[in-house]
């Protein structure tokens, strides 16, 4: 653990997405083009919050030397950057994407942006949430690693540093898998990695003074032309009342009526 010889920079880039707060009851817009976001509480994507927490813990262990929080979108994204800064990130980068283009911004665009930033900032590690709770894509970490040709360790539930490598325990369908990845690497966080600290009032005050740089995707040479068109957004069908059945014969006849059996 730690580095030998003169202190080398270990910069961690953390992706922070502004999403509708998990506790909000989401409503579909009457025109079915999307969900209602006006006047609705938004916050930092919970998995990204876990990523920030992990980065801060790495800095407290003197493994990371600087934490840079990144968010792509309209001006309101700066709110989540301030949250990240209050938790312990050192500075922020806001990639400005206006509202109309933000509606069609996809992981493929974000991962190109993160890849370019990683090169510019000479990052040793990129860490993002495994997925955003609005689109549930679970693509950004993987695509970013591909663009950079870096190793990826996704669904991390434990991260340890051993010399030049990372030992990451991943949550997979069959249980837990531990892998060794060389740095620099891209990681995505799973729920059980840590419990993020609360931002305290003094830290929120200090965060107001930390720097947030603004850039545009074009400054990084990234094209954010729309790839995907949303045709329709609908609520799931309303749950129907159940029917109490008296006996097996009735069950069979109802199944037959509904065409589930012959």
């Amino acid at each position, binding site marked *: 653990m730690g580095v030998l010889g003169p202190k080398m920079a270990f910069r961690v880039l953390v992706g922070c997405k502004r999403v509708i*707060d998990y*506790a909000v009851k989401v409503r579909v817009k009457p025109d079915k083009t999307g969900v209602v976001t006006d006047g609705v*509480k938004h*916050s*930092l994507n919970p998995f990204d919050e876990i990523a920030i927490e992990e980065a801060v813990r790495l800095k407290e262990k003197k493994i990371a030397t600087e934490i840079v929080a990144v968010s792509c979108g309209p001006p309101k994204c700066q709110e989540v950057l301030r*949250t990240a800064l*209050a938790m312990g990130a050192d500075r922020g980068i806001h990639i400005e994407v206006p509202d109309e283009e933000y509606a069609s911004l996809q992981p493929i665009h974000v991962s190109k942006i993160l890849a370019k930033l990683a090169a510019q900032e000479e990052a040793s590690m990129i860490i993002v949430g495994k997925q955003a709770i609005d689109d549930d894509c679970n693509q950004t970490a993987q695509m970013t690693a591909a663009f950079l040709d870096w190793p990826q360790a996704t669904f991390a539930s434990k991260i340890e540093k051993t010399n030049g490598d990372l030992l990451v325990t991943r949550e997979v369908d069959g249980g837990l898998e531990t892998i060794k990845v060389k740095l620099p690497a891209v990681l995505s966080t799973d729920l059980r990695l*840590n*419990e*993020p*600290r*609360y*931002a*305290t*009032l*003094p*830290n*929120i005050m200090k965060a107001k003074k930390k720097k947030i740089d603004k850039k545009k995707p074009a400054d990084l040479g990234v094209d954010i032309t729309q790839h995907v068109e949303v045709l329709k957004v609908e609520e799931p069908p309303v749950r129907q009342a159940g029917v109490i059945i008296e006996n097996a014969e009735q069950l069979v006849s109802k199944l037959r009526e509904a065409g589930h059996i012959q």
Partner: protein
Amino acid sequence: MSGNLSAIQHSQVTAEIVNQLAFILGSEHVSTSPSAREHHGHDESFHKCAPPAVVVWPTRVELVSEVIKVCNEHVIPVIPFGTGTGFEGGVTAVKGGVCMDLTKMDQILDVRAEDFTVTVQPGVQRSTLNNYLHDTGLWFPVDPGADASLCGMAATSASGTNAVRYGTMRENVANLQVVLADGRIIHTSGKGRSTKKTSAGYNLTNLFVGSEGTLGVITQATLRLYGRPETTASAVCSFPDVQSAVDTTVQTLQCGIPMARIEFLDEAMIDACNKYSHLSYTVTPTLFLEFQGGEKAVNENVQAVLEIAQMNGGSDFQWAKKLEERNHLWKARHDCWYASKSLIPGSSAYSTDACVPITSLPECIIAAKEDIETAGVKGPIVGHVGDGNFHIFLITDPDDPNSEKNIRWVAERVAKRALSVGGTCTGEHGVGLGKQKLLLEEIGEEGVRLQWQLKRMLDPNYIMNPGKVLPQLP
């Protein structure tokens, strides 16, 4: 005087009344189904389920008022319901009537972060509010363990593990919107007001805090918020006996050390917690401690308490610093109720709630343990000893026909002993159904008579949660 009110005959809820309620609220907000009524007829206490005749879910304060007016006109009981997590049978509909489930009114209104206040409706639970606030650096620290409705907590004057530092609901409710028995809607501190202090008129807010639904229905509460502490550290300290653990607490408080939490668990409770929450603490009287504040201050406080503990024969502190570890520790503490119940499968539990001056605490706990042994029942003890408040979770044994009798014997002795040293029979759970006689002894006849006068004035038809809190006068 009380005789008049308790003798009031309430009317039945007829089909016509149900139709009237459905007309006011919409039929989807009214239910007479047996499962809805059963669910709304009991809380976490051992008091038998007494289902209401009908359950309603109003969505606005105006509708709450309309329903109450109908009930008042027909002399039908109204019982407010939040999360049903009370310990004293407060929601049991012992005289039937209408249970008013307020959880559909679930908005968090008017977060004034820089003024440290927030206004909530009854459907907002404690953890919902704290999650909502989590990126503001603020929190509402009254923590009774259950994820209760904040307005319900106001109604029972709830407290919890953080009271030693932050106080109880009494100190932290700045304003209430209440619907009275005649349907009038009032704001106890005036509409939209919430200052840190006021001398304006009678303290109506604290009249309703702790009134357990007997004076009006709370439909909105303005709460005081606090900044999250910069540093938090939790520790466990084991002691050779009860006296040394409680002495440590008393001496810590008398030194003026600002503790955030001091919780006592006796060896029976540690054993239950170890089993239920998969911990491995030494099975001996223990203190769970929490320190909050700036880093330097926390370190100083830790040193000071460590010295006191060691003087009393306490062990080294076992630390829980990371948020996950602290949450696990305090969850185990809050799961004490379930941990105790699982000592005997199929049991139900009764919690005592004696709260005494801290100088009397050691003798009260030690005497209580002797009573538990004499009665031959299981009664692990856990307590907010920083407030002089301790709970014995007395567990009934379904296989022992004498178990309930023995438990009542212990509970009564504990309560009376608390009263005899100048304490109260209920520090935080409320009077509800079971502690009415003790209230008479505690407050005295004249005090209780005054409470009946207030009750009669505010609720002349005795519809507001009848049968609760106030005892019959001799």
